[in-house]
């Protein structure tokens, strides 16, 4: 074997009492793809931030081509040929692709900018790795997948030979992710070395040559992709055997929520076009689709933060007007927002305040405009206990919770009072394996208890595992429903691409 291009030796890093990295060592060979697998908080991002010089390690060192990298200097890392693609892109949306790529590469003191040479170099790189890009396009006009491509190109433009990608698929659709991994493999074939961070078992199995598993800051295992299995990786990652709960047959009850020809326009653009669905008690209706096809509008409409332009909504058979959040919550509709950090919680407020904020005006939590702190604390305590929210007490700030525990808090405040309807938008997005299982378990339990669950998701496996019936959302239109039993990944994939038969009368008859 040739000498490794990158060696990480005994790196440790402590944040307060939390040992984020504990004596981690790993190597990377030329032309190799290594996946860094671990749950949220396992220390993956910390390790890569140390490698790239964002953090100083407490112990250990990093060698590139056998030469030690000075610590805490991103610039030195770039010069040594290390490139990083961040999860949250570090690009300027108001600049063009070319300007973004060139930023930071030119001397401030130089008189003129070498734009034409840079354009040539960029296009050559793009050509070499099959990363199609328009150098003159404004970054803000590009899709998320294209922006990521620019971020990768920027690293390559800086002559990166070692590329680190932090959760590269977190923001991508399935198709974009497949394309990304094809690119990564091409880059490896051409001699680049790659590390990508992930907590998704499927993608590390398909894309990586070697998989390094981190848990609680420690390196717990290293496996060749060809010599391991998803089940083994899952167990290594979580530290115990986790199984996602599965749906058991159930008998749906009364019609809970019905949409008839509902259209939603935002700023003149139709986000939902004459959609129809029927949701019954005790079932999960899955709305599958690639993000950006109207899911957000659908979730906001049913959460009370968006008004419809035309069409009817029927709640238990009764037509309802445009209800605001308070009325929606009062009607017994639970809501899990798509982005828990932005809409789900106010991070700087206490857990108990987040638990009661959406029902603060109800007599249970306030009287005569005065907040009943004791009742709020008691309510939060119940949620923390019953829903196993770890990492915080009712009085501590919500921001300190991990993604999974934050989601448990949101689930808890909704499910605690047995809602008749639950609108769940991407409830497991970005969660690690253990938390995903917990969320699925709660959704299925709610279904068993008779709650009507509308599951909006872009994860095929999730919808197939949970939903009784499935509709696809494409360009703001909803497909007819298919029974979960009749659906497989292939047929759903076609539906997500907009291929379906026009609705027949039978589809409306239930």
């Amino acid at each position, binding site marked *: 074997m040739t000498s490794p291009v990158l060696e990480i030796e005994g790196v440790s890093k402590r944040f*307060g009492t939390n040992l984020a990295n504990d004596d981690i060592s790993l190597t990377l060979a030329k032309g190799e793809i290594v996946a860094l697998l671990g749950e949220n908080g396992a220390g993956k991002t910390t390790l890569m931030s140390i490698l790239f010089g964002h953090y*100083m390690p407490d112990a250990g060192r990093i060698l590139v081509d056998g030469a030690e990298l000075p610590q805490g200097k991103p610039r030195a890392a770039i010069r040594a040929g290390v490139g990083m693609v961040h999860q949250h892109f570090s690009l300027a949306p108001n600049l063009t692709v070319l300007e973004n790529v060139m930023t930071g590469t030119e001397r401030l003191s130089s008189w003129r900018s070498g734009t034409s040479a840079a354009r040539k170099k960029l296009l050559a790189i793009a050509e070499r790795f099959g990363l199609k890009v328009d150098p003159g396009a404004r970054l803000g006009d590009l899709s998320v997948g294209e922006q990521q491509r620019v971020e990768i190109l920027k690293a390559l433009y800086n002559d990166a030979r070692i590329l680190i990608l932090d959760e590269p698929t977190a923001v991508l659709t399935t198709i974009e992710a497949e394309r990304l991994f094809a690119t990564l493999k091409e880059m490896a074939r051409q001699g680049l070395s790659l590390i990508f961070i992930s907590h998704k078992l499927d993608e590390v199995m398909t894309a990586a040559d070697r998989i390094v598993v981190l848990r609680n800051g420690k390196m717990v295992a290293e496996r060749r992709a060809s010599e391991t299995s998803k089940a083994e990786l899952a167990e290594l990652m979580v530290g115990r055997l986790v199984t996602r709960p599965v749906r058991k047959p159930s008998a749906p009850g009364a019609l809970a929520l019905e949409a008839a020809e509902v259209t939603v326009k935002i700023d003149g653009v139709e986000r939902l076009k004459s959609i129809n669905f029927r949701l019954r008690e005790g079932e999960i209706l899955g709305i599958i689709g690639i993000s950006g096809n109207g899911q957000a509008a659908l979730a906001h409409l049913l*959460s009370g*933060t968006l008004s419809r332009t035309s069409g009817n909504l029927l709640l238990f058979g009764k037509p309802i007007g445009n209800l605001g*959040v308070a009325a929606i919550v009062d009607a017994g509709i639970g809501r899990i927002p798509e982005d828990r950090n932005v809409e789900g*919680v106010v991070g700087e407020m206490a857990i108990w*305040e987040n638990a009661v*904020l959406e029902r603060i005006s109800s007599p249970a939590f306030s009287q005569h*405009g005065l907040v009943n702190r004791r009742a709020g604390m008691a309510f939060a305590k119940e949620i923390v206990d019953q829903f196993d929210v770890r990492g915080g007490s009712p009085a501590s700030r919500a921001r*300190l919770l991990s993604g999974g525990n934050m989601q448990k808090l949101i689930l808890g405040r909704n499910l605690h009072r047995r809602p008749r309807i639950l609108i769940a938008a991407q409830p497991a997005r970005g969660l690690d394996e253990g938390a995903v299982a917990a969320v699925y378990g709660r959704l299925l339990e709610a279904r068993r208890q008779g709650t009507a669950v509308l599951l909006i998701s872009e994860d095929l496996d999730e919808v197939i595992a949970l939903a009784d019936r499935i509709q696809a959302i494409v360009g703001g239109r909803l497909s007819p429903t298919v029974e979960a039993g009749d659906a497989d990944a292939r047929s759903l994939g076609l539906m997500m691409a907009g291929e379906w038969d026009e609705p027949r009368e039978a589809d409306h008859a239930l």
Partner: protein
Amino acid sequence: MRFERREQRPFHLLLLTPLLAVVAALALSGILIAIAGAPVLDAYWRILLGAFGSRLSATETLTRATPLMLTGLAAAVAFRARLWNIGAEGQFYIGAIAVAAASAKLLGNLPAPALVPLLLLVGAVAGMALILIPLWLRLRFSVDEVVTSLLMNFVALLFVSMLIDGVLKDPLAFGWPQSQSVSDHAMLPKLIARSRLHIGLAIAIALAIIVHFIQSRTVFGLQSRATGLNPAGAVFAGVPLGKTLVKVACLSGGLAGLAGAIEVMGVKGYVTTDLSPGFGYAGIVVAMLANLNPLGVILAAIFTATMFVGADGMSRGLGIPNYIADVTVALSLLTMLIALFFTQYRIRR
């Protein structure tokens, strides 16, 4: 050396920050005092004596602290909801002139028990009315209120200037541009006899306690905090964003208007264009020093007033310009902002 975000903000740090900021500001001003050729410790001792050395100076300091408490509260409640009301100075003047106008033209003949509360209310309402203009622009057209509320200060001051040189001009003022005086029985009762200290101080302290109660205990307080911290999250939780901001703005503008009213009715009796030596702007410093805590505003206002009043005494004794007070107060804002940064981040080497 680099900065890392703190996961936990230790409680003692929140109490310690303003103190450290003030000490740092005093130390930095000390350099200037030394350059001016005066003994630094002696200078600070004289500032303290000048502010609290006698009955007269102590009451004078508290008199000066009164409007600062109110404008400080005005900034604190607005900033909590991320409503950047930089217009307290203008609201102060509008509150003041509204009182003078109402007393001279409308209500002057009412008996004191009715007149005083009514005039205070008039001042508060005038302040509210002024802040509603930038707020409306923000809600309707998304115009940044930092700019508009600041610009309204100049509009307000010129408006006052126009009135006191015109319809409200005092004919007995030998041609000086000053407003007609409010009726004698409209003046606030004194807190301590033979001093300028009036019950405005008690009103300001009471209001600080009330505002603290509103913020920490009421639904409105919770909602306004959520609005400031995460508007999208607040909307999702059903907080009426516009309504909450209107209430916050009314509270903030009302407090600043009240500050103007109280200054007229407690101290001056009439309005000139130098009624406020920048109370509205200093209120921003006071609010920041208090870390936006309404009870902290009381202490921060007293500190600021101490510097202003004390500096006069020091200036007389040592021949150092009393501008040093402005410098110290301004520096304390800078050091407080830096100190606040360190409550959120730690240094690692």
